[in-house]
């Protein structure tokens, strides 16, 4: 190898009050402002139809914004079409050109941006090597497996050394095992080269695993932005709490506040929790299923519950229990001595984990 290496020209992406309205009536993205730092991997996460793909396509320039501005690397690109933006995209269907060989696919953008033959070939090889497909350049896309096609699509986008690299659900056509492997590869390449990557998925586990930051979208707006840990441990509202990892949402009452700490009454027990800016009055408590423990013996500050359903799922147990304020979903890692359906047991919340949320919005 003569030392041709794929570099990064990572740049930041900024949305300023961006809206997209299709056909005058469908608002797919509604007044969104966000900042994506250069060199980070940010995922757009949310339920189907919330506007993730539309957001991504606006970064690419494949959709024109209806309102607002988009800046890439500090420059206003709002009016630039996709052709003129220094942004590459990996499509869900990969969109490899079926009549061109792997090498031609990867060289396509290089030729168009005016590199000479030798340079194009060198970069094409470097790109294929980067994704572990060195020597595949003579094959046709139809002669590759799904995972290999996916990597060709990544190489094709990478070799242009774009300011921003976009992925729209890149793993959805792969089987579960391959998915984990490919997502780790993408993350590795991104970190090695320091690329700015925007990544769309509706799989929250995938988002948690690969992202520097996650943007959760809901009905054309941003529900919350933050690091994976922020979102998981300090969701801002019930939607985020439930969407990122499951959560039990329990009605509760804040009875007193002292500094940052609040006394919260749930049924018969009282907890001291971080107030998170909430005042005295009704609130909601979000508790992850694995932050609840069940025990046959009574302990301090717990409550009596009845187990109504027991499911064995291999590496943990799932319980559905009836408490005085409703049903809860609990995960326990104790599989060897499971609790039986109908048993009366005692429930307690972990010290960290339950999060106070504003009452129903």
């Amino acid at each position, binding site marked *: 190898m003569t030392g041709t290496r794929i570099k990064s020209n990572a740049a930041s992406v900024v949305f300023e009050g961006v809206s997209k309205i299709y056909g005058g009536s469908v608002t797919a993205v509604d007044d969104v402002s966000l900042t994506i730092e250069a060199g980070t991997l940010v995922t757009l996460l949310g339920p189907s139809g919330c506007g993730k793909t539309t957001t991504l396509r606006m970064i*690419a320039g494949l959709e024109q914004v209806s309102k607002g501005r988009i800046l890439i*690397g500090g420059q206003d690109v709002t*009016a630039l*079409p*996709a*052709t003129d*933006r220094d942004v590459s995209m990996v499509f869900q269907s990969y969109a490899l050109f079926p009549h061109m060989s792997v090498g031609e696919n990867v060289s396509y953008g290089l030729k*168009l941006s*005016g590199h000479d033959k030798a340079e194009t070939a060198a970069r094409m090889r470097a790109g294929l090597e980067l994704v572990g497909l060195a020597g595949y350049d003579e094959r046709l896309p139809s002669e590759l497996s799904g995972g290999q096609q996916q990597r060709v699509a990544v190489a*094709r986008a990478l070799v242009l050394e774009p300011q921003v690299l976009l992925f729209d659900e890149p793993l959805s056509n792969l089987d579960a095992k391959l998915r984990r492997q490919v997502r780790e590869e993408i993350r590795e390449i991104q970190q090695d080269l320091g690329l700015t990557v925007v990544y769309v998925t509706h799989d929250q586990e995938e988002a948690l695993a690969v992202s520097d930051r996650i943007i959760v979208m809901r009905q054309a707006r941003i529900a919350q932005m933050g690091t994976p840990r922020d979102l998981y441990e300090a969701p801002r509202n019930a939607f985020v709490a439930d969407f990122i990892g499951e959560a039990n949402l329990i009605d509760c009452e804040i009875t007193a506040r002292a500094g940052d700490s609040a006394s919260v009454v749930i049924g018969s027990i009282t907890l001291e929790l971080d107030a998170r800016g909430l005042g005295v009055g009704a609130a909601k408590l979000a508790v992850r299923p694995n932050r609840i423990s069940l025990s046959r013996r009574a302990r301090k500050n717990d409550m009596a519950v009845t187990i109504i359903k027991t499911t064995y799922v291999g590496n943990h147990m799932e319980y559905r229990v009836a408490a005085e304020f409703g049903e809860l979903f609990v995960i326990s890692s104790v599989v060897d001595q499971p609790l039986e359906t109908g048993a009366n047991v005692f429930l307690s919340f972990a010290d960290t984990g339950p999060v106070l949320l504003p009452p129903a919005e």
Partner: protein
Amino acid sequence: MTDATLQPPFRAAAGANSNRMIMVLLGVALVAALALPWYVIEDGFWSGEWLLDGYPLDSSYAPLIFLIAQGQKLWLAPLIGFAALPLLALRRHRSEPVYAKLLLTAGIGGLGWLALQGFSIGIRGWQFGALEAAFGPLGDRQFGLGYGALLISAVFVVYIGMGMAARGAVGGDVFVVSAIGFVIALVGIFIFFPILQMLQGAVRAEDGAYSLSIFTDKFFHRNIWGLGCLSANVSCGVAWNSLLLGVVVGGATTALGLVFALVATRSGFRYGRILRALTVLPIITPPFVIGLAIILLFGLSGTVTQFAADLFGLTPTRWVYGLPGIVMAQMLAYTPIAFLVLIGVVEGVSPAMEEAAQTLRADRWTTFRTITWPLMRPGLANAFLLGFIESMADFGNPLVLGGNYNVLSTEIFFSIVGAQNDQARAAALAIVLLVFTLGAFFAQRRWLGNKSYAGNTGKGDGCAHPQMPRRLKVPVYAIAAFWCFMTLVIYGMIIYGGFVELWGLNNTLTVRHYSDAFGVGWNAGGLVWRGSAWDSFWTTLQIAAIAAPLTAMLGLVTAYLLVRQKFAGKDAFEFGTMLSFAIPGTVIGVSYILAFNVPPIELTATGAILVLCFIFRNMPVGVRAGIASMAQLDKSLDEASATLGANAWQTFSKVILPLLRPAILAAVVYSFVRAMTAISAVIFLVSAEYNMATSYIIGRVENNDYGLAIAYSTVLIFVMLAVVAALQLLILKGTKGRPRRA
């Protein structure tokens, strides 16, 4: 203004490219103005004789700059200014407003000036009295625009495209905007302009004065609208004749098409592919050939007629000349078209729906009445309207078989070529015909729109279509078998007829007709094409071969714009490009004669007018083929290409075209074949030098030289069969595994 717009775009190529493009265009404009003859050349551009005949100084061949330099046609001088104006934009970036302004001024100004001078100066100087009064007599005249003018107009269109793109129209892509501009300009000049000229022709008296009464006289004439046949023993107006013919043929072909569709899908008939092969017949058969065969069968000296005379002593009559003959010929010719429409419809009625109805306690008849029939109704209406339009527009069969039964399409022809030479009447008749066919076309679009009920339950559930009940099956089979028998007989007649000395009178076999038409011989100079048909045969091949790729290209570009691009006025754009489908050939023929025999566009008696006529008549075929196959290409291929830095032209040429190879091939071959079989428009446009096969054959028929006419038709049919077969092979090869690179 934001500061960002002044900065270069991220992919630096964009700015440099647009400057390079201006240089290229300026170069092309220079070639057009300095090297190519500005005006049309009487002896033909491609003969090249002009090169040795005083070019570039002689004013009939001189390029624009030579004309001006010699002080001739000085009114053309501003064009040079407009063409050179973008020089000022060379140092500008395309995001600067002045860049767009310069290019738009150059393009619109240039085209506008070209049109203005073209229409205000005619063959006798000023066209309008007011201009003459203002500027004094001109003392000069206009000729038809030639290749120099053509090329410079193209440059002007691209200037406009670049200007609009710089302003951000349609994503700011020069190729897309220019392509839209070209298609609009071409459709405007070669479809709308001639039709408008024709409308104008209908209100112009022989002396050139305009008068509405002339139009109303001709338009409402007894010949057209008379209803005498209902009461007295005179014939009805041609409009009623045409209408009756259209309705009968539309209804009959729809019914027959349905019969075939039922046989193909609901009878357990396993030779569906043979039935589908029948649909090739109307494509490869010149329309009037069926009429000829019917004469051989049922004419005065026809086989059947003579047989009946011998056997039953029936006196031969001319009964077949008229409505019965035309209906018979058109039914045989157009049923395959109806079949093609209806097989989709019948297949689209999902058996699951019918079975669902039956599980809901509907008996078979109720199921048919409440489910099957309503689902098929739009398709049937569609087939009927198609048959109606085809029948109304058909020219060959009524000409050959019409007898005293006059229809609009033939009447138009006779008012122009006959002793009458009454262009206003031809125009009025053409308007009547156009109103009918456009009415059907509108009905088809408005009423059926693009919605089809068929198949909206998604994929079939894998169950086969139920069989028809026996009561229905027997008559359906009988009808289909009879039709097939007739078709076989007809084509047998055609092949056999070419070898018969004089049909019905002297039945000895001979190859005389073939040797008369296609004989070759030797002399000192080598091979001589002695046969009388060679001239028209080669001309036809040549014209069709030039027209076909152009048609396909225009059709595919249009399809690309329609499928892949969003722009204001797209519906109108689509409508305009599909319109020529509903304009009968005779109407196109008349309107071309009226529009293109005077400057600024003077094309009559050239080969170019034939090529153009074919391009615009067959364009909808190319558009449909393109739309159908482009819809199957995933849009993300385009988008991937765009995000990799390709502009629309690069995407179109590197990604879309290579993937559309089969569609391109199909479009090329079908427009080739259609150009070879067309007659209705062609017959107005042929000239001594450019005679086409079909019009030559019609000429032989009019001289009662049936033998040669039929021999020639047979040759055409086999040539086209070979072409279509070659196409099928090529497409098959193209889809079976793509070429692998070593």
